[in-house]
């Protein structure tokens, strides 16, 4: 066990940390977990609107990354790769939710899983949900939750997380031009939604 090895002082470049984690260095992996866990949580929460689901996705993503790390050929691609894993887990979960919605007969439950499941009401005990009430006043989060899942992912990855068009394209398996088009559609829908909200 080499948790004490000098893996990760603040100025070590990420590529080197990734390479050490690929060698099985737990301290290096822990450094990566701390670097990415909150970013991924913010993405997953905005995608899924459910605290527990978002935590599950982040935990599964980072665990899967430990297992798959040795297969990553370009150490500099780690950031894009981990965002891709997390985004696709969110999209899978939303697909499952909407598939479930189609087979549910209880109207209350149907309501709670509409729109890719993203608009289902957060639990009252959910501290994130109550803390964000102020932010919701401008209507953006409400409108975001009405977007189709892929549009929402596009918007969050680009406008909130600053990921590149090329990377988003790889993540969503669409070309960069389509990414731009999808973002434009999202922007139009957000503009429409926000003007209704006012």
């Amino acid at each position, binding site marked *: 066990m080499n948790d004490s090895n000098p893996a990760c002082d603040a100025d070590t470049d990420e590529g080197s940390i990734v*390479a*050490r984690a690929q060698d099985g260095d*737990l301290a290096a992996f822990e450094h990566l977990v701390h670097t990415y866990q*909150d970013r991924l949580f913010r993405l997953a929460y905005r995608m899924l609107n459910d605290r527990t689901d978002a935590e599950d996705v982040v935990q599964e993503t980072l665990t899967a990354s*430990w*297992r798959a790390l040795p297969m990553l050929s370009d150490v500099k691609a780690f950031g894009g790769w981990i965002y891709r894993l997390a985004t696709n887990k969110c999209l899978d979960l939303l697909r499952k939710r909407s598939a479930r919605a189609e087979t549910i007969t209880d109207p209350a439950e149907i309501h709670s899983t509409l729109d890719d499941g993203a608009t289902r009401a957060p639990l009252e005990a959910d501290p994130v949900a109550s803390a964000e009430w102020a*932010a919701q006043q401008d209507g953006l989060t409400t409108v975001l939750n009405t977007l189709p899942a892929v549009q929402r992912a596009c918007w969050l990855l680009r406008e*909130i997380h600053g990921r590149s068009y090329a990377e988003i394209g790889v993540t969503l398996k669409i070309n960069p031009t389509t990414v731009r088009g999808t973002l434009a559609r999202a922007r139009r829908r957000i503009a429409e939604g926000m003007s209704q909200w006012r």
Partner: protein
Amino acid sequence: MALEDTRRLGCGRSIDQIWAGMDQPPTSHEEDCELCQAAKARMQKIKEATVALRESDLHNPEMTLPAERTNSIMALARAEARRSKRLVLRGTEYGTVEISEQALSSLIRLAAAAIPGIHSRRCRIEVQSDAEMGSTHLTINLRVATASGIDIPATVEGLRQKINKAIPAGVGIDAGTVNITVEDLYDV
């Protein structure tokens, strides 16, 4: 709302161009162009709400992964830690001296950490043992990234010497063959 992103404004600018320049001061064209100004004003609200959401999420202590989740991730990683190769350094009639590849590579990484301008990366170690002669020969294959702008040959030579001292000091055998590959440059 007439936000036709694929279409261009009458002045030839596309909505995408205007959106991309939202957080920059107006260009000289935009200063004179009412079409651009109107489009910018329409999108201003979305831009502001997006920045507000990004900032409030970023600074909201609730928007973080709880510590018990981090602990679970690390506990599982530890449980599934890739089993480190055992390297037999010396075989004697009374028994063998073994060291894990990870312990040995830790020594090497420590040596590398002492050299400015070097970040160690993957490290592979092979041992050739000759039982009859009682001798052991190590081959160390270390990949590194170096700071851009440094004297690479001199720095790599310094690293090799450092490893050549650190291995005998740490485990009592020669470092053997030390192959260092510079696979990347990092910006300082």
